[in-house]
């Protein structure tokens, strides 16, 4: 196993940096999109991909204003804009901008090519009517968001069969940054969706509180007990492991490692395990949700938010689940409005994220006062709650509030297309997230000696407990609630 040099302090600082960059980029994109409410359409050139049988007709600019650009022109404009903005972000994070720009170019090309392939009619069409429309006799029915899965699989292939190439790409492999920007953008989209049925949205919000109780008080305690009692892990390993499995993966295990003053390597090793298992979940759970929970769409959405660890994997899996469940319902003649399942998954995840700082403080207090008591040792400080608060959540709340005010204030028919432009960028950041998660998931680590025991705790806890309790709780709070119908 290679040496790990990342310290929790360095990591926390990087996380804080990524949070700041994600808020600036996300809010900036939304502001530019909203200019079209009162002035010119500034972002209508963003590329979008339709389901295709003729590849020449697949790509295009989102807005008719920029139709003259053509598909390749829109793709190039989108790439240049993202390269410029993210290179500035990379500079702010202290990355090597030259290396980032080169690596990002390759990441963008591969990731968007995966998305393009995923929109092929033989992979994407779902209903017989769609198949007839595109003249295809069969389809894998992955929906047009099957491109996420393609991007993830391509990333996995690179990580596991071309490790040197994966290492070369690492400057631009930033799933946390990409998903945080996507979540900030998601705030406005959820607000516009929620404004159409405000009573339903507030009811769902209330039910999301159960997720916080479940993750911190039920999951954590059980996983910590399993790790300590059944597998004999030390406290230093068991606490970050419990947070990784229970709360939200990477950020939680690093925050916990810092809180209990664990050695830097411990949460980093746990985090690498979290990412690997999140990939397994993303590849399995959305399809299980489609197979068994399509009659209960919001149960499926909440379950994904509770079961899949790491923000990136969870929210992205929510997107796939929505697509698959809505497609199955559409095939049965029921057309649900899009956005509600993704909103529930994202809300559950963001609710859980908010309390990481509080939980880290509680653990820090217990460890410094009762477990690792040192006469002159550093004690837990209440300021840690704010230090560990995931700041990108503020960006999510800001875009949500702005979107809601505009939607309820009668911003007019231009609001939905404007937010739609921001949402198209959100989809692109999802694609980058999926590909990046894949590139980080080196499954060979599981076979390295010493790692198996950690993986065993994760496996037993996740598949033996977490996903089942998550299903029961989701059922208790979301069964019988349907998203509104489209139109």
């Amino acid at each position, binding site marked *: 196993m290679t040496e790990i040099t990342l310290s929790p302090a360095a990591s926390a600082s990087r996380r804080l940096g990524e949070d700041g960059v994600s808020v600036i980029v996300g809010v900036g994109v939304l502001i530019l999109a909203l200019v079209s409410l009162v002035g010119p359409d500034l972002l209508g050139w963003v590329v979008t991909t339709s389901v295709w049988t003729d590849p020449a007709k697949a790509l295009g600019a989102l807005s008719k204003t920029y139709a003259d650009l053509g598909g390749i022109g829109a793709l190039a404009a989108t790439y240049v804009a993202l390269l410029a903005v993210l290179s500035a972000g990379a500079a702010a994070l202290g990355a090597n901008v030259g290396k980032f720009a080169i690596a990002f170019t390759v990441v963008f090309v591969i990731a968007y090519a995966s998305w393009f392939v995923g929109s092929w009619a033989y992979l994407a069409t779902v209903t017989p009517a769609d198949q007839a429309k595109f003249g295809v006799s069969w389809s894998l029915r992955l929906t047009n968001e099957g491109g996420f899965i393609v991007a993830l699989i391509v990333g996995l292939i690179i990580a596991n069969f071309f490790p040197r190439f994966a290492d070369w790409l690492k400057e631009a492999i930033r799933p946390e940054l990409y998903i945080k920007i996507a979540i900030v953008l998601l705030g406005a989209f959820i607000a516009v969706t929620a404004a159409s049925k405000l009573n339903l949205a507030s009811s769902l919000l209330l039910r999301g509180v159960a997720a916080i109780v*479940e993750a911190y*008080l039920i999951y954590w305690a059980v996983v910590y007990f399993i790790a300590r009692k059944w597998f*004999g892990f*030390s406290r230093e390993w068991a606490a970050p492991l419990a947070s990784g499995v229970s709360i939200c993966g990477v950020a939680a295990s690093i925050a916990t490692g810092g809180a209990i003053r664990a050695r830097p390597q411990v949460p980093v090793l746990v985090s690498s395990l979290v990412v690997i298992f999140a990939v397994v979940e993303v590849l399995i759970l959305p399809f299980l949700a489609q197979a068994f929970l399509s009659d209960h769409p919001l149960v499926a959405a909440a379950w994904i938010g509770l079961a899949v660890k790491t923000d990136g994997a969870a929210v992205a899996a929510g997107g796939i689940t929505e697509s698959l469940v809505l497609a199955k319902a559409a095939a049965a003649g029921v057309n649900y409005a899009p956005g509600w399942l993704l909103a529930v998954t994202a809300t559950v995840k963001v609710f859980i994220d908010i309390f990481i700082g509080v939980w880290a403080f509680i653990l820090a207090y217990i460890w410094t006062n009762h477990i690792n008591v040192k006469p002159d040792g550093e004690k837990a400080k209440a300021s840690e709650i704010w230090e560990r608060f995931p700041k990108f959540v503020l960006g999510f709340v800001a875009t949500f509030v702005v979107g809601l005010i505009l939607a309820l204030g009668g911003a007019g028919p231009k609001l939905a297309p404007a937010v739609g432009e921001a949402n198209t960028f959100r989809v692109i950041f999802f694609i980058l997230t999926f590909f990046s998660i894949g590139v980080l998931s080196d499954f060979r680590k599981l076979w390295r*000696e010493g790692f198996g025991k*950690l993986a065993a705790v994760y496996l037993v806890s996740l598949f033996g407990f977490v996903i089942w309790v998550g299903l029961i709780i989701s059922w208790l709070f979301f069964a019988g609630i349907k998203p509104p119908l489209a139109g």
Partner: protein
Amino acid sequence: MSEQELRDELKAPAEPLLPIEKKLIGWSLGIGVALLVLLVIVNHFLPVS
């Protein structure tokens, strides 16, 4: 941390649960289950509009 160090560390004898850890686990589960029951009741009396 080298592979050898990790292997040795994970094979080390188990440390018994301290009373404070038992309290942490017990109180977490107790409060968690109680809050979930409370939320189920609230959920029942505040149906989705």
